[in-house]
């Protein structure tokens, strides 16, 4: 991509005044562009720095095992919030992964050119663009109103809506990445369509599909808006999926608005844990993908 070498290195003493003006304009834009690019790194480093500095203060083993402190009290942890986040992400995966992967198999293996496949692709694109809070509103309308209570299940459903397009679109890419020759070879040996998909295509596409699932985990774990008024929050451990559940993100939101320094400190610690969780999921996603890359052919 480093393409044709730009003639920017021409020395300024070449040429007449007009050329010198052009070259200084060139230099001006280069400096401005570089300056602006590095300027945007400042907020990111600020975020990472503050999350680390403020988050590490309270990061002890007890933070992972204790319940959040009542307003104004010291001590406590975010144990139930971690539990709630993991449970709801798990529910989301259980709902979204089969649906996403099966849909991807339909639009890639069975009927890639059908009208339904086109509709699925278009819908998935639109679903990615839906604001995350709308997933919450939907789960509220469908689960909370129906069952009559806020619950971890409602939060999981909201996150599933969020995860579905990610799983679907990355699975589609994973299936498209399986060389066509493999399928032909399988058919050539007399395998049925079903056998080809299960024995040849899916094993080949699995690592890239895992990438999609992990990306969905990363996206779902970090979200607040979908669980804010579906799972609500809870001061206690989660006993069943039909009960309100705490989550790291809602805990951060709630505690950030409190006037107690200790609670705000705990919000930073929860942020650190949440960012670590999301980053771990993202890194796993990248690793699962890059491991496959070398042998991959179109």
């Amino acid at each position, binding site marked *: 991509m480093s393409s044709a070498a730009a003639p920017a290195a021409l020395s300024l003493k070449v040429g007449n005044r007009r050329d010198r003006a052009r070259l200084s304009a060139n230099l001006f834009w280069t400096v401005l562009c570089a300056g602006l690019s590095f300027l945007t790194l400042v907020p990111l480093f600020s975020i990472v720095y503050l999350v680390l500095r403020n988050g590490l203060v309270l990061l002890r083993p007890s933070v992972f095992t204790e319940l959040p402190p009542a307003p104004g009290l010291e001590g406590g942890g975010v144990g139930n919030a971690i539990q709630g986040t993991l449970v709801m992400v798990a529910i989301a995966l259980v709902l979204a992964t089969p649906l996403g992967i099966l849909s991807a198999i339909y639009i890639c293996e069975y009927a890639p050119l059908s009208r339904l496949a086109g509709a699925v692709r278009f819908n998935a694109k639109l679903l990615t663009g839906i604001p995350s809070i709308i997933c919450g509103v939907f789960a509220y*309308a469908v689960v909370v109103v129906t069952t009559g209570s806020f619950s971890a299940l409602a939060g999981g459903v909201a996150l599933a809506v969020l995860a579905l397009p990610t799983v679907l679109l990355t699975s589609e890419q994973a299936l498209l990445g399986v060389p066509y020759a493999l399928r032909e070879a399988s058919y050539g040996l007399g395998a049925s369509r079903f056998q080809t998909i299960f024995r040849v295509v899916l094993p080949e596409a699995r690592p890239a599909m895992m990438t999609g699932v992990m990306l969905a985990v990363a996206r779902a774990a970090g979200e607040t808006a979908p669980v804010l008024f579906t799972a609500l929050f809870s001061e206690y451990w989660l006993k069943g999926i039909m009960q309100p559940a705490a989550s790291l993100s809602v805990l951060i939101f709630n505690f950030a608005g409190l006037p107690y320094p200790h609670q705000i400190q705990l919000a930073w610690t929860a942020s650190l844990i949440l*960012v670590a969780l999301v980053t771990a999921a993202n890194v796993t996603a990248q690793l699962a993908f890059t491991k496959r890359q070398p042998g991959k052919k179109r």
Partner: protein
Amino acid sequence: MSGPATPTASNPFRRRGLRVDPFFAVTWLAALATVASLVWIVASILHQAWPAIQKTGAGFFVNSVWDSNRERFGAFPYLMGTVLSSVIALLIALPLGVGIAIFLSENFLPVPARQAIRFVVEMLAAIPSVVYGLWGIAVVIPLVQRWGGLLADHVGFLPLFKGPAYGNSMLTASLVLSLMVLPTITAIGRTALATVPKTLREGSYAVGATRWETIFGILLPTAAPGIVAATILAFGRAMGETMAVAMLIGNSPRLNWSLLSPAGTLASLLANQFAEASGIQVSALMYAAFTLVLLTLLVNMLGEFVLRRAQRATAGLR
């Protein structure tokens, strides 16, 4: 794209009688469910919103009083807040995002350094929204309080900067929003710039243009449709962004043109009121959610449309 579809008749071992692969039926159902989900989302929200739609009608969009106690629901301030905060965020993020996209697609830096910057910008996208909110409370609100006061003192005669200056304000929310949409603009903009054929760039250099004359005269105009698509999609993202905005904008139901005063957006309204809402208020909030869904769907469809046309246009240049 050669689809992996082969005629089903190609399998000699299939029993004649069994024409439908049961697994096919399962995937077909899943695909159908995926398509149905979007319809279901819109329909269920519309269903819940119906009482409020009947009660307030189109007045919902023009009335500017939101008072749930007196059951008066006018979403105009929130609608304005949604559009205004997103527009300001884009005004800030667009030059920065395109600048970074140029910086990353030119050979100013060696490839590893560029990949490092790209990674950092992608990390911006991975940070949860609520952490942006927490950071905004700790860093951006004090900054806006200090500099906003100065702005109000010196250019307060402009309605946009009328005092008094608050920390929880439209400006704070827009600043953080701009940071959050930056990765979207950079990623799509970079792709658009990268797909400009090399020959165009070489041709420009060959006739003696400098690097930036090439960027402004050739690269940006060629990549313009892609950059426009990036802007539209980023606009859609900014409108739906909830948590950071809800934590920073001050959530005022009053219509105010000053960037230094608290405001509200449709999304922040939902985030703040939904958990404690009851009765007709739930329905009114559903109405607001329905408005937000329609807005974002429209913007995203437009963005996808422009992006697809942009890709087709650059494909023709090859």
